[in-house]
C-alpha cells in the first residue's frame, strides 16, 4: 500500500511521518500546491506550523490545492490521518467535528502522554488490543479539543472518540479528556499526540505509534483482499 504525506510551508513532522509509513509500505511526500495525490491509498496530514499558524492553526492550510484533493478523497471514503497540526487542519476543513484551542495553561508543552484506546473497531485502531494504552509524545500549544456538548454526546454515542488521555494525562484541558476523534463515516481520524515519533523504542520512548499506521495498513490491505 502507499501512504501520501502532505507537506505545507511550516510542516516539520512530515519526514518522521514519511519514515513511519515506509516501515509498513510505500510513501510519497505531496507538496501543498499539488492537486495530484499520486494514487495514495491513505493520506497523512502531518504536524508542524503550516503557514506559520497565521490567523488560527490550520486555517490557511485548509484552503491549499492539496487539501481540496484530500477533501474529495475523504468524501469517497479514503483514509485520512491528521496528526497535531494535521488534526487542526482537518477540523478547520470540517472533515472532523470540533476545534482545537490554545492549551488551558497557555504553554507549549512537550511530554510523553498515556492514552486509552476507547474504540478499536476502526481503520485507525484495529491493531490495538482491547483496553490497550498507548504511550506517545505530545508537543503543542493549541491542543485543547472543544466541541459543543450535544455534538460530544452524539460523537460518543457513535464511537467517534477513539483516544482519551488517561487519568492525570490531560495536560491541555481537552473537553472530556479527548485526544483523538474520527468523523461520522469513520475514515478520517485526527489526534494531537504524535504516533510518527513513536515507531522505534530507541528514540520514541515506545513503538506504540506504529499501531496506528499498522491499523491503516491492515484496513487497506483487508479492503483490497
Amino acid at each position: 500500500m502507499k501512504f501520501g504525506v502532505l507537506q505545507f510551508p511550516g510542516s516539520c513532522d512530515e519526514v518522521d511521518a514519511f519514515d513511519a509509513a515506509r516501515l509498513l509500505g510505500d510513501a510519497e511526500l505531496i507538496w501543498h500546491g499539488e492537486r495530484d495525490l499520486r494514487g495514495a491509498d491513505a493520506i497523512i496530514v502531518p504536524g508542524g506550523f503550516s503557514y506559520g499558524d497565521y490567523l488560527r492553526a490550520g486555517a490557511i492550510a485548509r484552503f491549499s490545492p492539496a487539501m481540496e484533493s484530500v477533501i474529495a478523497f475523504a468524501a469517497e471514503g479514503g483514509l485520512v490521518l491528521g496528526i497535531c497540526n494535521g488534526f487542526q487542519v482537518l477540523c478547520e476543513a470540517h472533515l472532523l467535528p470540533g476545534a482545537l484551542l490554545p492549551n488551558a495553561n497557555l504553554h507549549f508543552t512537550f511530554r510523553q502522554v498515556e492514552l486509552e484506546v476507547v474504540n478499536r473497531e476502526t481503520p485507525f485502531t484495529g491493531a490495538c488490543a482491547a483496553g490497550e494504552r498507548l504511550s506517545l509524545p505530545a508537543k503543542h500549544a493549541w491542543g485543547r479539543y472543544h466541541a459543543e456538548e450535544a455534538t460530544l454526546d452524539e460523537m460518543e454515542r457513535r464511537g467517534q472518540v477513539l483516544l482519551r488521555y488517561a487519568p492525570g494525562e490531560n495536560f491541555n484541558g481537552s473537553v472530556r479528556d479527548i485526544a483523538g476523534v474520527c468523523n461520522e463515516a469513520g475514515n478520517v481520524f485526527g489526534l494531537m499526540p504524535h504516533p510518527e515519533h513513536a515507531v522505534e523504542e530507541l528514540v520514541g520512548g515506545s513503538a506504540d505509534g506504529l499501531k496506528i499506521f499498522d491499523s491503516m495498513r491492515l484496513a487497506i490491505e483487508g479492503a483490497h483482499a
Partner: protein
Amino acid sequence: MRARVLIRPKAGILDPQGVAVERALPALGFAGVSGVHIGRLVELDVEDASQLEPMCEKLLANPLVEDYEIIVER
C-alpha cells in the same frame, strides 16, 4: 471602504489569555476588573461590504468557537 472585524472567543469557552490578564491586573493595582476577553482585530479595505460576513464565516473566524463583529467605517 475601511472595515474592522473584531473576533472574540465565544461566551462559555475558556479564554485562558483573558483569565491570565484578569489575574495580572490586580497585581498592578487595577482593582475591580472582570470579564476580560482577548480576541483579534482584522482591518481591511473592501469594495463590497456584503462580502465581509461570508469572509468571516469561511476564513477570518471559526464560528464554532468564535463570535465576530463587523464594523464598517462610512
